[in-house]
């Protein structure tokens, strides 16, 4: 076999400490079954603080909104609810998420309602005084109608803008920076209708600012959008409106793989495998979107850039330090000088290092007689841990059951991780995963850093397999304590009854 192609995960404290407590993790799965999701609520608060540090560095005010859809946990939400109300909020995209946020202790004024909205969602958002992130003039009219019909107070609204690449005359002559088309938001050059709707409905809605969310890792695209929103808000001021917040969405990213070198080696090997100059690295030669056309590689790899030198707060810092394409000032300076608050909505990067997904090994057998590769059958399926769905490639960590059993010594081995559904396609990863030794039945595999979009994003009850339970854990002295996700409250040590107040 060639040298093993590891993609070992980036693991930082306190998650790193939790992983070393093999006995504790095994006891959790023994009690609660496989699969099992484990969350560290304290880590999410630390991440929020890291984002705030970037705000402070640039003298900016405004809120960090947790994008609820990244993880449905109560523990994470309650822990964030305990943070400074002026600094941390939650972004909800359905009426159920809104109810959950309220139930976890967020007051309406800390909640931002985004995404497609039905009448119930709009009504509850307006009722509790949430900020509504408007997608279109039509949505504004519907909201306004509700406010009038039910006699609510004015509702704070942001307007979500899009289509920044088509704005004319504001870029360097002859340069056009393209963007992927989004199905959300109002095109910025069609904002006139939106502005007059805002003016017409001034007694029902309070216009507090503009928003954008771009699905791209490109900093330049985001800086351009940010500047155009500032210019847009300036036009609003000229018309007598007084917006004061700019919401720049999320997409700050997470680095999943620890070593750049491993990531580079693997992606190069994928290209070579697609070209046929080395054996496949994937189940049935899957190319992740790359294809071989007459010896030339075509297509784009549908892979999340799993090793990232800067992500999360670092990425925000870079964005804020970038010069704006027209006005030339750094984007942070632009916001500061125009007296705008900055709102962000990090989903994935706010739950970086906040959780892991555990799966029990059920069975191990050779994939075929001569390859030296194995099928490792897990009590978990691709819906329970959907890293692959998002193109995130990273190795699980093997947690042997025994002390120094045979499984502990051994050689690196390439395995395919198969799920517990009776479907050929149910693989935890379509990639040949290298593990430092062959697992045996009863061992655990820990998928690290799965709190964002991965641990239960696609989980369902089809085929009646158990859906993962979720627990919150906390370090106390020398040991880890746990409680069910739904029993976590930030006021009580984990695993204890709340004191009487």
């Amino acid at each position: 076999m060639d040298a093993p192609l590891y993609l070992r995960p980036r693991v930082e404290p306190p998650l790193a400490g939790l992983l070393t407590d093999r006995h504790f993790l095994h006891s959790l799965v023994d009690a609660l079954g496989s699969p099992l999701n484990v969350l560290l609520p304290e880590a999410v608060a630390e991440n929020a603080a890291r984002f705030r540090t970037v705000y402070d560095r640039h003298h900016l005010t405004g809120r960090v909104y947790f994008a609820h859809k990244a993880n449905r946990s109560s523990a994470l939400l309650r822990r964030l609810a305990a943070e400074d109300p002026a600094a941390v909020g939650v972004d909800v995209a359905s009426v159920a998420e809104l109810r959950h946020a309220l139930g976890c202790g967020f007051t309406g004024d800390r909640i931002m309602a985004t995404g497609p909205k039905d009448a119930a969602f709009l009504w509850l958002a307006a009722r509790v005084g949430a900020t509504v992130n408007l997608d279109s003039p039509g949505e504004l009219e519907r909201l306004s109608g509700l406010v009038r019909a039910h006699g609510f107070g004015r509702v704070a609204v942001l307007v979500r803008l899009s289509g920044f690449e088509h704005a004319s005359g504001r870029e360097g002559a002859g340069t056009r920076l393209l963007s992927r088309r989004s199905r959300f938001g109002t095109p910025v050059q069609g904002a006139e209708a939106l502005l007059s709707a805002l003016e017409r409905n001034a007694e029902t809605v309070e216009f507090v600012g503009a928003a954008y969310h771009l699905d791209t890792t490109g900093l330049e695209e985001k800086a351009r959008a940010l500047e155009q929103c500032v210019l847009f808000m300036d036009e609003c001021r000229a018309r007598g409106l007084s917006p004061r917040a700019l919401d720049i969405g999320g997409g700050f990213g997470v680095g999943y793989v620890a070593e750049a070198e491993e990531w580079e080696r693997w992606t190069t090997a994928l290209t070579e495998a697609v070209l046929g100059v080395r054996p496949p690295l994937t189940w049935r030669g899957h190319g992740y979107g790359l294809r071989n056309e007459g010896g030339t590689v075509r297509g784009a790899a549908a892979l999340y850039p799993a090793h990232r030198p800067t992500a999360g707060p670092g990425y925000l810092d870079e964005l804020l330090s970038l010069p704006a394409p027209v006005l030339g000032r750094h984007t942070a300076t632009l916001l500061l000088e125009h007296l705008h608050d900055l709102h962000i909505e990090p989903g994935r990067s706010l739950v970086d290092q906040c959780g892991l997904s555990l799966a029990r090994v059920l069975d191990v057998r050779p994939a075929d007689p001569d390859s030296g590769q194995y099928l490792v059958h897990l009590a978990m399926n691709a819906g329970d841990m959907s890293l692959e769905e998002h193109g995130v490639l990273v190795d699980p960590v093997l947690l042997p059951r025994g002390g120094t059993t045979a499984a502990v010594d051994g050689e690196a081995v390439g395995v395919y991780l198969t799920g517990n559904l009776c479907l050929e396609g149910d693989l935890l990863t379509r990639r040949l995963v290298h593990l430092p030794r062959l697992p045996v039945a009863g061992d655990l595999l820990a998928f690290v850093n799965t709190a964002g979009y991965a641990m239960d994003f696609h989980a369902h009850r089809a085929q009646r397999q158990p859906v993962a339970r979720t627990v919150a854990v906390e370090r106390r002295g020398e040991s880890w304590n746990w409680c069910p996700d739904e029993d976590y409250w930030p006021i009580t040590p984990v695993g204890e009854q709340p004191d009487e107040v």
Partner: protein
Amino acid sequence: MRYDSITEAIGNTPLVRIDPAVHGLRNIDLYAKLEMLNPFGSVKDRPAWHMARPHLEAATDAEGTVVELSSGNTAKALALLAGMHGVRFKSVTNRMRVPEIKELLLLIGAEIEELPGRSECLDPTDTDDPLTHFHRALSDPGSTYLHTDQYFNPRNVEAHAEGTGPEIVKDLDGRAPDWFIACVGTAGSSTGVARVLREHDPRVRVLGLVAHKSDFIPGIRTIDEVHQVGLFDPATYDTIESVTSDEAIDGMITLIRRCGLLSGPTGGAAYQGAVRQLRYADEELDGTGQRRTAVFIVCDRAESYLSYVRQRRPELLGRTGRGRSAVAVTGAEARAEARVIGVDDARRWSAEGDPRPLVVDLRSPHAYAALHIEGSVNIVDEVFEDLLRGGLPFSKRTPVLLACPVGEKSLRYAAALSRMGHPDVRSLAGGIVAWRDAGAPLVRE
């Protein structure tokens, strides 16, 4: 030399020997093929003209647009050629990372389309990259695009097989060199030249240089990216090695400072990669009495890469300080030396002071225009910084109130002005933000 058109000046570039005292090879003569001396400044002049010529000479009604996926030299050459023939040129790229090249292209009249960044929330069923859309647009019926397609067009290779390669053989008195070293971008020059040299002597060894995977050298592809090039055939090369941007700049500096060759980083990479590789062969030749020859390509010139160098090796462009600077006042010094004034006192002072203070708003003109303190003047901080280098910009009899967004920059400038002898300069505590938050009026004029 008298020409009817600048295109006649393409090709016939010199082959210049590198002084052995510079490269240190005892048994190998190393030559640089100076493609930077082509009229538009690079090796790409050849394929650009060879690919575009049949179309441009046929374009009588000056309609249509030449398009190419190029971040640099091919775009530059094509834009100039298109301009000469009254045709437009558009470059589509996501690699335009060198600002001088971008600005030069705009000066020449090119349109630039920059491709979007990668998706953050991946949709794995959507593997349609932006380039697929680009190709679809090209093949639209009624499209007037003329795609030179440098990564797949055999005329790219031909340009070098007919020009660059034979010129090297001619200048080496009818012999092929023992080694040929080229950086791989479109693979056009390495493939075309290698073909001709091997026809002369099948023993020629060809070294292809690519960029280290996580690195960026303008004009060179990484080992993964070369596989996306239709002209790339691994069989062309005896060896493929990678070079880093550090090595490219080292090589570039050697060529510039010791050889008088004003090479860009790609030429530097070729030189550095060549010497690194040839050193072993040179040692083996010691004592055999044999001499060998090697040729590398200097792709283009240094001028367009100053910001590239500034970003990676600022010390090479070291600047000396420009005198007094408010930045030189530390935060602690500013807090100790500057006078501050709260919003309420500042409002009273600016309304009732005798004389009234001059209020200076240090924000950008755009922000100032949006909202400012009535009666204030706007001197943006960068300009203010320059003003201070010349001396005190206000009369000492005029009190000054400095305002910036949160009172941090104004504090430093207040300290700097005090040091320069101004008796009454104060910084607005908390800045314009505090002013607004206190409900004090801001106007828009």
